[in-house]
């Protein structure tokens, strides 16, 4: 299965890169932009067909390595293809 994992900064954690992107969007004339937060997207292929077991595996990966849960949240979708 393929897991599509999104890692985002927790609300309240300073995000200088997001702020810079926001500034750049404003400079380009996108006046409606009212906040940018950036994060990471990771695809992981797991040799596991059972969604429950795959989920458990992905969660452990996120907790142990892929996200730093002091500052980051994670979410994922499993894709049977």
């Amino acid at each position, binding site marked *: 299965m393929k897991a599509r994992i999104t890692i985002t900064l927790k609300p309240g*954690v300073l995000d*200088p*890169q997001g702020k*810079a992107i926001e500034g750049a969007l404003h400079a380009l004339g996108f006046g409606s932009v009212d906040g940018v937060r950036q994060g990471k997207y990771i695809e992981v292929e797991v040799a596991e067909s059972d969604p429950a077991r795959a989920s458990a595996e992905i969660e452990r990966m996120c907790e142990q*390595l892929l996200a730093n849960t*002091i500052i980051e949240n994670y979410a994922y979708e499993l894709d049977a293809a």
Partner: protein
Amino acid sequence: MKASVIVFPGSNCDRDAAVVLKSVMGHAPAMVWHGDSELPKSDLIVLPGGFSYGDYLRSGAMAAHSPVMREVVSRARAGTPVLGICNGFQVLTEAGLLPGVLMRNATLRFICKDVLLKVERNDTGFARHYQEGEVVRFPVANKDGSYFADDATLDRLEGENRVAFRYCDASGAVTADANTNGSCRNIAGIYNKTGTVLGLMPHPERLADAALSGTDGTKMFASLVEAIH
């Protein structure tokens, strides 16, 4: 005194640390490869600067899970002094030996220059040769050097007197202008609860040689040699 320098793939200040350790100890430290699960008997463990695993994913994240780190964590918990410099500090936070995290500098750029630091306490094995409140000059060289922790953690660190160094101006004033990377409360380095694990972003080993325009870093290593003997 026996010191070990841990070498991760992508470490690049391992030699610099070893040269300074040799100059203060009189003999070379052991260079320990990250893949080793054995760690020689050590009175001091140094996690050097560099870009372990290219700083891919997050600075220090992958190195924190390398085989040797399990042993480093257990030695640290047993009281062996551990010094994490720059990437080594990032590894210590990712490994859970120190709280908080090092984030992208406020400028978003790599910063390499000398900075001034206020020595917050001198009652540890790392700092006994400094004066409390002394202003010292160490270089920084990092892109992810901005120290972040939530307010509760920061309050706890301050309450437990665990801030080691803060970015300051020439008079020792801890100002926003002196905070080159946007660290919370100008924090440049912190201790664990027992004061035996120190992580800091600036490089004491880079100004510990008279030919390199400064020797403020020498005192940290001399302090350690004296404390350990």
